[in-house]
């Protein structure tokens, strides 16, 4: 059984179609990359999966359960963890407290039960040195790491990552890829939106290409990158 299955999911903002009968399945433990030009509807697709935006049509099944109508909180409890493209930290809380909230509520445990795990995640994501600082004082890079760390703290079974590698140096990007690969090897199902293709392709098993809310290609990274349509669209935005 796939961990996530979308069938004919559609969403319009006024005249703009941002999801056009999107259907795909994600296998348990699979890592899927999503690429596409700016404004293609990638982040919107995440918001549809997490419930932050309600779908106009179609169904979303997570782990065998129809979650199409559920609010974001319920989907998080069901096991969907997400990062926001524009980081949304709890600014007045410390970095550690940001994770503590996510752990205590997202994983339905007591603060005492999740404290150690939150500390470990901070070590894994390189934020431990900032643990007791207010999240509002973090740099953009640290905020992106916090997005990843906080999503992990909810103990998700599906991790949605939205452009967390943009703007990183080569070394930082390498470290991030290592972190995500480790998480993935431990069995986590992941969907990762990223413009940094080499980072993405070194982790994911399949790529999904989105353009104007439509899936225009799906398959192994090599096969997708070889397709003419994808090359044209990508060349289109690369210049």
């Amino acid at each position: 059984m796939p961990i996530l299955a979308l069938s004919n999911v559609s969403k319009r903002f006024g005249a703009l179609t941002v999801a056009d009968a999107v259907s795909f399945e994600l296998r348990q433990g699979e890592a899927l990359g999503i690429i596409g030009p700016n404004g293609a509807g990638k982040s919107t697709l995440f918001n549809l999966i997490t419930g932050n935006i309600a779908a106009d049509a179609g169904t979303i099944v997570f782990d065998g359960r129809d979650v199409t109508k559920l609010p974001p909180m319920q989907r998080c409890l069901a096991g969907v963890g997400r990062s926001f493209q524009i980081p949304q930290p709890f600014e007045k809380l410390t970095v550690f407290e940001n994770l503590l909230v996510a752990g205590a509520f997202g994983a339905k445990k007591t603060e005492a039960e999740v404290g150690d795990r939150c500390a470990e995640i901070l070590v894994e994501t390189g934020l431990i040195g900032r643990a007791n600082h207010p999240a509002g004082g973090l740099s953009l890079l640290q905020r992106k790491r916090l997005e990843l760390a906080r999503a992990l703290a909810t103990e998700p079974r599906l991790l949605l990552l939205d452009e967390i590698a943009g703007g990183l140096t080569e070394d930082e990007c390498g470290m991030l890829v290592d972190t995500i690969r480790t998480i993935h090897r431990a069995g986590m199902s992941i969907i990762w939106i990223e413009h940094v293709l080499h980072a993405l392709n070194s982790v994911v098993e399949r790529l999904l290409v989105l353009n104007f809310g439509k899936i225009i290609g799906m398959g192994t990274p090599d096969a997708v990158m070889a397709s003419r349509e994808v090359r044209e669209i990508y060349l289109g935005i690369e210049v």
Partner: protein
Amino acid sequence: MTDLTLTRWKVETRTKASSAFAIVAALIILLALAAPLYLSRSVLQDLFFILTLLVLAQNWNLLAGYAGLVSVGQQAFVGFGAYAMFALVILGGFDPLAAILLAGIASALLAIPTAFFLFRLQGAYFAIGSWVIAEVVRLALAQWKMLGGGTGTSLPREATRDMPALKLIGELFGVKSSGAGDILTYWLALLLAIATIGLVYRLLRSKQGLGLAAVRDNQEAARSVGVDARRMKTLVYLAAAFGTGLCGALIYVQKARISPDAAFSVIDWTAYVIFIVVIGGIGTIEGPIVGVIVFYILQNLLADYGSWYLLILGLIGIVIMLFAPRGLWGLFAERTGIQLFPVRRRLIGGPVPVAKKGGPHG
């Protein structure tokens, strides 16, 4: 830095200042409890006034400072609690003490339908809606002829004089029933203030308090990490209605005379309260305590200036908001790092380089 040693992680909220303060607070409470032994009636009445304002301020702070629910209609619950108490005593023959508690419950019940209406509104509309509700409740109660309609009514003297608690206090302190009444209401206000601060502090230190802080900072993100933002806000709204209604009933047991205009006064029960919270420091427990003291001093200093009083109060409020947006306590805490009611969960131990280890200030 990333090698995990065997040292365990520990989470702590206590600070040195807070441990010392706990002792001081216990002493203050003891002194305050014994106050009727060494303070005059008029001072007790002043203290009653301060304590009840403090309770209202803590409730409003919980609502606006922690749950982000900026209500300008909390006088609805002061007035409703007061009227419920009057109705229970005059029409139901209840003991005023029991009536205070029941009035709190009645206010919480009133908050259920008003929450249903208000939670559909956002930001400024929420504030306006809360005020409209207060007006509606006031107009409705002003129709209640048995409680004096628009002109109001008084508590029958027997009802307050014959309270068993009063007799006991009267004998104990050797005072007449009016003096005993002041002692009793003072003690109740003190108890209510301590209980309110204690409960708010407990809430903030609990998991729910952490969730509330997350909702305040970023509701969208809070929902995405599994926090039920709506439920959290509703519970705070109901709790604040209970505390505010209870306090309203207590205030009017002491006043013993009620009218719709006084009981639903937006100036007395909301504007002053907001002033107190804002100048003291919103979103902290210490803030309203500092605020109420400053307010009381100002009120006494400005008592002779008649209608200029409100204007000057407003100006001071604006100046403080401009130069100390987080209030007087916020300013002080920022400079000194002192927190008397710490809620921060600090991660210590483990392989972290501990921040201020060995520093002169520890």
